[in-house]
């Protein structure tokens, strides 16, 4: 069974996280299809050009902004281009504007916006005051904007990603190998912990959190057995292990104040329990906060059935906490709809158990009914503001990226990167010819060849050398053969391929009108490149039975989005 779709949006290899999240969601009985919207697709999504999203909007979209992508290039050079506060505010405005556009068009989508996290390791290196680090400062300003908007706009919720890091430690959640090799900074444990928190968040968004916390008393709310140890003999508060129980009660009281119904289900004499409430001031949980109680000698499952009846709440909204595994099993086998967490074997684990309980079953997203009127006003205001920021067309959006391209011809300093592009580009690659570095040297030294590389950056990210075009000049039947043309999938979706090819062709022809010929060679994953030549104005000359197609261009390249790029050639002013 499927529970709609969930989009994961962000500039990391979230594909690695998707199966981990799927497993975590399954433990809540949730089975959404997870769609990853990574490097290239993220921009397409923001520009409103992601057909999949536009035609079948998902139930929810989770956005993970990366501080590294947002601020590193702008702020860590020797001469930063912008002050950190402004960088943080601009990046937030950009992201929130993009989400507002999509949100206004597709109001059914729940947006889960993660905070950006200060990078580990590296940021704050050798600093006593994190606000002296420009990236940390920008991140904190960015997060403040995201936080505020999530509070204002219905249907958006904030996800504080760094809480996972705080709980486990960055040394545990970070995996340098995965970061460097796979562009996924999280370790296996980090992914698992993040998935659990995110699953809990999503469970809350779809409104399936629990309503009732049913608690045993002896060895659960206090240490020891009141009927045997006496009211003064039970362990509660003070120094030592008794404090574990008061800390746990504090979490229960907090949950109660947020609307969770707290009930007692205990095998005891009712008077003994009353006496604990009356005589032990360390009881953080006050009797008036208990919605109902079933204290007696029958089975726990009978007790829970009666409590459900009293409250008028279904048993599937109950969480039952009991230190005794036999009681837990009795309820589990009789009332499978009741959620029953394992209880810590060591009472020292109780405060952390309380925290987990709150996360797992009672996690709350968004606003209470008292806030709703205020929220409506905020919402109307937020939508007006969003409309003015909306991008009219995908081109408007791309223009706002302020993209700059640098081209370089037959550049031996790019030898290794050029060879690597031929070897690693599987998607946007016209012929899939692979060149070793040695072969690349040969080609660069051959006067008939022209190898042109392109680097691209935008206001957020320096993508590096991302595209390569290789041409060979033929003297008989004079023409240029496009031997290979490829572009990293990181920059697909910006029409850069057209602008790049147009610039290459101008450079080759130097005013002549020589034809450009090209072959598309189909491979397992390069379908994305197949329509490109026709879009660029090439004419199909012949198709082979194996799927190869020959093309020729006699006119100029069709590059409708040429003005989106500031282009320059390396070594020229």
């Amino acid at each position, binding site marked *: 069974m499927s529970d709609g779709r969930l989009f994961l949006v962000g500039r990391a290899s979230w*594909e*690695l996280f998707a199966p981990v999240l799927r497993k975590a969601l399954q433990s809540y009985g949730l089975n959404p299809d997870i769609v990853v919207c990574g490097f290239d697709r993220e921009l397409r999504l923001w520009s409103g050009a992601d057909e999949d999203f536009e035609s079948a909007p998902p139930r929810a979209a989770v956005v993970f902004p990366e501080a590294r992508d947002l601020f590193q290039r702008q702020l860590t050079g020797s001469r930063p281009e912008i002050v950190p506060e402004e960088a943080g505010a601009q990046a937030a405005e950009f992201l929130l504007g993009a989400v507002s556009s999509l949100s206004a068009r597709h109001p059914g989508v729940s947006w889960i916006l993660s905070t950006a996290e200060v990078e580990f390791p590296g940021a704050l290196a050798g600093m006593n005051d994190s606000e002296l680090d420009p990236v940390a400062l920008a991140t904190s300003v960015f997060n403040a904007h995201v936080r505020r908007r999530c509070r204002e706009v219905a249907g958006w919720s904030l996800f504080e990603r760094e809480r996972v890091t705080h709980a486990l430690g960055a040394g545990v959640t970070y995996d*340098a*190998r995965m970061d460097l090799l*796979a562009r996924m900074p999280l370790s*296996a444990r980090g992914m698992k912990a993040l998935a659990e928190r995110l699953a809990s968040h999503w469970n809350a968004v779809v409104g399936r959190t629990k309503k009732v916390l049913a608690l045993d008393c002896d060895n659960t709310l206090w240490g020891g057995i009141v009927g045997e140890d006496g009211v003064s003999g039970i362990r509660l508060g003070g120094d030592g292990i008794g404090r574990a129980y008061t800390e746990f009660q504090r979490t229960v009281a907090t949950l109660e104040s947020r609307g969770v119904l707290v009930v007692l289900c205990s095998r005891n004499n009712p008077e003994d329990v009353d006496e604990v409430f009356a005589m032990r001031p360390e009881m953080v949980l006050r009797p008036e906060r208990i919605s109902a109680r079933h204290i007696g000698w029958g089975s726990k499952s009978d007790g829970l059935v009666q409590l459900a009846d009293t409250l008028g709440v279904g048993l599937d909204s109950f969480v039952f906490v009991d230190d005794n595994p036999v009681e837990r099993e009795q309820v589990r086998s009789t009332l499978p709809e009741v959620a029953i967490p394992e209880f810590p074997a060591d009472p020292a684990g109780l405060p952390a158990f309380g925290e987990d309980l709150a996360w797992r079953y009672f996690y709350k997203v968004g606003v209470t009914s008292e806030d709703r009127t205020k929220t409506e006003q905020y919402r109307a205001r937020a939508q007006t503001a969003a409309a003015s920021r909306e991008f009219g067309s995908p081109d408007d959006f791309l223009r706002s990226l302020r993209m700059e391209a640098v081209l370089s011809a037959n550049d031996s300093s790019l030898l290794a990167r050029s060879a690597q592009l031929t070897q690693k580009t599987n998607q946007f690659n016209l012929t899939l010819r692979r060149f070793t570095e040695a072969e690349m040297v040969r080609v660069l030294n051959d006067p008939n060849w022209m190898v042109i590389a392109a680097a691209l950056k935008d206001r957020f990210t320096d993508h590096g050398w991302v595209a390569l075009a290789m041409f060979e000049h033929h003297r008989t039947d004079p023409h240029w053969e496009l031997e290979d043309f490829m572009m990293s999938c990181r920059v697909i979706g910006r029409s850069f391929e057209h602008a790049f090819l147009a610039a290459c062709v101008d450079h080759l022809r130097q005013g002549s009108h020589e034809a450009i010929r090209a072959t598309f060679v189909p491979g*397992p994953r390069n379908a994305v490149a197949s329509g490109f030549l026709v879009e660029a104005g090439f004419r199909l000359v012949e198709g082979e039975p194996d799927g190869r197609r020959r093309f020729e261009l006699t006119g100029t390249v069709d590059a409708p989005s040429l003005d989106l790029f500031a282009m320059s050639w390396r070594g020229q002013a």
Partner: protein
Amino acid sequence: MSDKLIATVAEALQVSPGLVQESTAMENTPEWDSLRHFALILAVEEAFDVHFSSDDIPSLTAVAALRAELLRQGRDPGASS
């Protein structure tokens, strides 16, 4: 008889264990793409409680190579799963 390494690889690649053999490798298995490779590495690390170095990860692209590395690290890749 089930081989724990084969079972782990099959699960990570989301294919039937019957389709995974000693000769299975990235170059002959479409499901074993560059991203899935990292998921597979993490799955093998967890299953056998081992740690592969960043030098080794890019070359552990075949069942036989994984098996050899597990043996080198003193694990039993054939333990029944």
